[in-house]
């Protein structure tokens, strides 16, 4: 590892220790996540890993402070700062929880390194939906300044293909299709399911069983059959009809339409003045 790399690693370690320590202790998961990341991104040798581990332990013991952070990230571009922030979020969340104090520290770091704090919440949210790229994140050393013999800086990856066109991940599309098919089945069950509860108990007066409409009690069944006599009902006339049968108009429409939804999937009458009876729905209800 180059000297620069090592500097980058210690700087990163400093920030990460700040975050990890915010909830009082660096958990073993947080430590592993951090060191594993460093190992992946800057080719740590065994000895170097041990030194960084020791450094981390030293940081843990001395409780690093937030001061001087601005200087540490001076050389970083906006994009790299954002990635740095994203990485720090993964460190804080490596143990599966994110304490308020950790979020608080992250808020302070984001402010100091010049990223809009609202991005922080998006990053945390993304982590909780696993949208964060879990692969190595390239973070340039703050000390890495352009030199004539320097390695060209890594290009940032974007989801856009050449010429701004889109590339779709076919495997992902397949997965989404399967999931959507499953969700369709689940919801279709809900939206076409028979009413398990059955009709609520109501008055079963002297009405011939054949005249009872599925899903309705005797009184509403009679009302429905009377409704069938006309294509449209002025509101006052309907109210009087319902009243003559000791039913309340609004409640009766709701009740009848609910039964219509259960049997046909559409309402029988539009609740306006005049009420219009849907013949097709009616036909299916009193088959």
């Amino acid at each position, binding site marked *: 590892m180059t000297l620069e790399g090592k500097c980058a690693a210690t700087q990163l370690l400093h920030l990460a220790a700040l975050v990890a320590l915010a909830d009082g202790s660096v958990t073993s998961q947080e430590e592993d996540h951090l060191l594993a990341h460093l190992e992946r991104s800057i080719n740590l040798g065994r000895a170097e890993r041990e030194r960084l581990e020791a450094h981390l332990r030293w940081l843990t013991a001395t409780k690093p402070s937030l001061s001087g952070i601005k200087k540490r990230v001076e050389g970083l571009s906006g994009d790299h700062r954002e990635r740095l922030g994203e990485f720090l979020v993964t460190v804080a*969340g490596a143990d599966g929880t994110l*304490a308020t104090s950790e979020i*608080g520290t992250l808020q302070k770091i984001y402010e100091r390194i010049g990223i809009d704090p609202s991005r922080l*919440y998006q990053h945390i949210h993304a982590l909780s939906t696993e949208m964060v790229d879990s692969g190595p994140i390239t973070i340039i050393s703050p000390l890495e300044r352009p030199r004539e013999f320097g390695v060209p800086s890594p290009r940032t990856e974007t989801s856009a293909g050449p010429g701004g*066109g889109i590339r779709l991940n076919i495997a992902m599309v397949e997965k989404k299709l399967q*999931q*959507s*098919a499953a969700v369709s089945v689940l*919801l279709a069950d809900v939206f076409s399911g028979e009413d398990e509860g059955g009709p609520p108990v109501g*008055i079963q007066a002297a009405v011939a069983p054949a005249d009872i409409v599925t899903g309705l009690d005797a009184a509403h069944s009679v009302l429905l059959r009377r409704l069938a006599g006309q294509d449209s009902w002025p509101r006052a006339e309907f109210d009087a009809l319902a009243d003559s049968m000791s039913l309340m108009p609004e409640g009766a429409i709701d009740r009848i339409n609910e039964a219509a939804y259960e049997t046909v999937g559409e309402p029988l009458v539009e609740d306006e003045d005049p009420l219009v009876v849907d013949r097709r729905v009616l036909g299916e209800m009193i088959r």
Partner: protein
Amino acid sequence: MNDVAKIRPRERDAIIQSLRAGVVPRVGQHLIQVGRLEEAKAVLKDVERIGDGGSAIRFVVGAYGSGKTFFLNLVRSVALEKRLVTVHGDLTPDRRLHATGGQARNLFAELMRNMATRSKPEGGALASVVERFVTSALGEAKTRGVKPELVIQERLHDLTELVGGYDFAEVVAAYWRGHETGNDTLKNDAIRWLRGEFSTRTDARAALGVRTIVDDATFYDYLKLTARFSRLAGFAGLLVCLDELVNLYKLAHTQARNANYEQILRILNDSLQGIAVGVGFVLGATPDAVLDTRRGLYSYAALQSRLAENTFARGGLVDLSGPVINLSNLTPEDLYVLLGKLRSVQASGDSSAYLIDDEGIKAFMDHCSRKVGEAYFRTPRNTIKAFLDLLAVLEQNPGTTWQELLGNVALAEDRNPDLTPLDEEDNEDGRSGQSATTGAKDDDLTTFKL
């Protein structure tokens, strides 16, 4: 992509009209739901639990454009289908969970105006619910040969033990008296009272003879009463959908904000401890409104500890046992599948009538990506609208091909209304989230003035 089975013309039209107008459809969401199987399963269980007399609470958290409102409406449809009564409303600076200046009562009134049942999914179902209760009481009175008032009082007896329950029962009885005596004013007053539209006790006393009204302090108690009442009216329970939690987060006044968070905590505790009967809450929030430790829900320690339990999905496993459902941002793949579903809905599920092939969908997305960058899938409102507009042109002009039209598809970038400063937001109280977006866009055009 062709898994959309039977599509009813009513649902087809509702979906297409809403989406073309840039709003989330109220019905038929299940026909265009992409993925989110576990999330759907979780809320289905919630709805069933509410129907069994239990309670539930969910915070649906997602960034702008991730489909929070769509998901909330899906939950609402599922609930209606499972015979729950639903109420919904957006939180705004003028409609809050806790207030002293009438804003909580405003929220209550808004919720009650939007009360929906399966047969009245568009809202305005409060009278239907009351009448269904009274009708069944009338039926019982007839069979038992007693006065209807007696049955009504008996059935509402349970409510009288709750805060405000006695007057609630009185008002329902007043509705019945109004009906019986042909007194429409009394009926209307009863409905107005139940909707929380009386602002003074004196008025309520004069109109209905009751001493209390729904006010800021009793907002939540009356919601619980309404839930119990829905069950007595023969429904399975009540689902309360509150969108735009971000507006509580934006309250500048710390005390007001905390009082609202305290109300959320109360609701959360009631739900988790099973104290509330047959009532569930779904709240839509953006990540910052939850996670900000200075002003978000996380700034309220008791809420933070209850919400943080299932923060992270580990190893691809989503834990939905806690109250938070995190909606991931949309990916291009999600959008691709969604556009396929829309194509299918447009063709009423008949794959031989598709107006555009898979290649066409890809080319369309390609076009959008070039026009507005990655926003085309992150905030897909305008992309969806443009796609449906394209389909409409193809439909009305048989013989034209998408290849000919694609170049002319215009697309504007969608802007997050949450990014508008609060002062402006204050002026937009009465406007829906959608009109706020439009407003933001209009502003956008004028910002280029020199």
